[in-house]
């Protein structure tokens, strides 16, 4: 069964001049995911803006700066960063034709993602116990919604990677499917990049006043 990409390369009938070549060098799926990521980028931007708006307002109660644990969050951030490495190694593996290694790195990526999430959950429950909550003050509302949405994105990514892994184990993924890994990878890296931004803006920027 042929599943030919209709626009793998720009159309170019052989005896037409170059001007007949139309299209982009990206496949449909790759162009599509980049469009989606652009959109998601705006989504996070709005929440980051709200966080920035509210971080320096005088407000009662416990704020992030009272409860933050930089060493812990640095560790979980490091784990997420490493998951980007394992993701790109997975892609490199399938490009080499090494399905076993691809699966291995895929699993490692998902595992690192789960460790990150576990860290987030631990962190959030600790915050709640220490009085820093979603409904406590502006800082809390903006923090938990922003990082919570990021966590949901990580979760969706883990489900995605898990699905790919399952398909591969069932032999429904072949070396011709490297694009599927690449697309998942782009999403995963995006989620990592968003965390790079969040980690800096939310955790590391000095507390106001």
């Amino acid at each position, binding site marked *: 069964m*042929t599943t030919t990409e209709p626009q793998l390369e720009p159309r*170019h009938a052989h005896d037409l001049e170059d001007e007949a070549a139309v299209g*982009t060098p990206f496949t449909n799926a790759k162009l599509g995911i980049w469009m989606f990521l652009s959109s998601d980028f705006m989504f996070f931007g709005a929440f980051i803006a709200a966080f920035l708006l509210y971080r320096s307002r005088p407000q009662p109660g416990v704020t992030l700066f009272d409860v933050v644990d930089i060493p812990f969050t640095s560790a979980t951030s490091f784990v997420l960063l490493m998951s980007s490495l394992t993701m790109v190694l997975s892609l490199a593996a399938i490009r080499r034709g090494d399905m076993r290694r691809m699966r291995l790195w895929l699993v490692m990526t998902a595992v690192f993602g789960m460790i990150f999430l576990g860290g987030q959950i631990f962190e959030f429950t600790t915050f709640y116990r220490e009085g820093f909550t979603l409904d406590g003050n502006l800082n809390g509302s903006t923090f938990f919604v922003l990082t919570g949405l990021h966590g949901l994105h990580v979760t969706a990514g883990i489900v995605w990677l898990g699905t790919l892994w399952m398909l591969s184990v069932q032999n429904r993924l072949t070396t011709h499917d490297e694009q599927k890994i690449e697309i998942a990878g782009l999403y995963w890296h995006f989620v*990592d990049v968003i965390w790079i931004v969040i980690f800096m803006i939310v955790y590391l920027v000095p507390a106001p006043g």
Partner: protein
Amino acid sequence: MTEASDNAPSEEELPPDAKEEGAVATLTTTAVGAPPKEAPVPHSGHQHDLSPFGYVMIALGLCVLTALEVGLWYLEGNQTELFGWKLFSDGWIVFYLGVLALAKFIIVAGWYMHLAGDAPIFRRYFTVGGIGAFILFLIVLRALM
């Protein structure tokens, strides 16, 4: 009946790596010829792919940048001065953090997401878009604050 697209190769003639999962089935019988000069072949033959070692090196670089970022957090309130400038005032720290975060952003987008190796048009699109979005949010924050 024979007038048809003489230039269109039948399905079988399409190069094998043109067949891809997740793509729509042959919606066209048009010829797929050589790509235009600038664009690399989309999915395979990434001559600019790094070796696994290369990716690990990049990861190490990212770790170093992260360590620097975290280090800056510990340097908050530090009073070191250089020619009368407080090196680690809040404002400067935000600046350094911004530079480091931007560097990490560019490295991940460029090398893990392969934007550096892809067609220049996309680099331009994302750079312009990114700067545009950043400016837009600066305006919004300015209007709000």
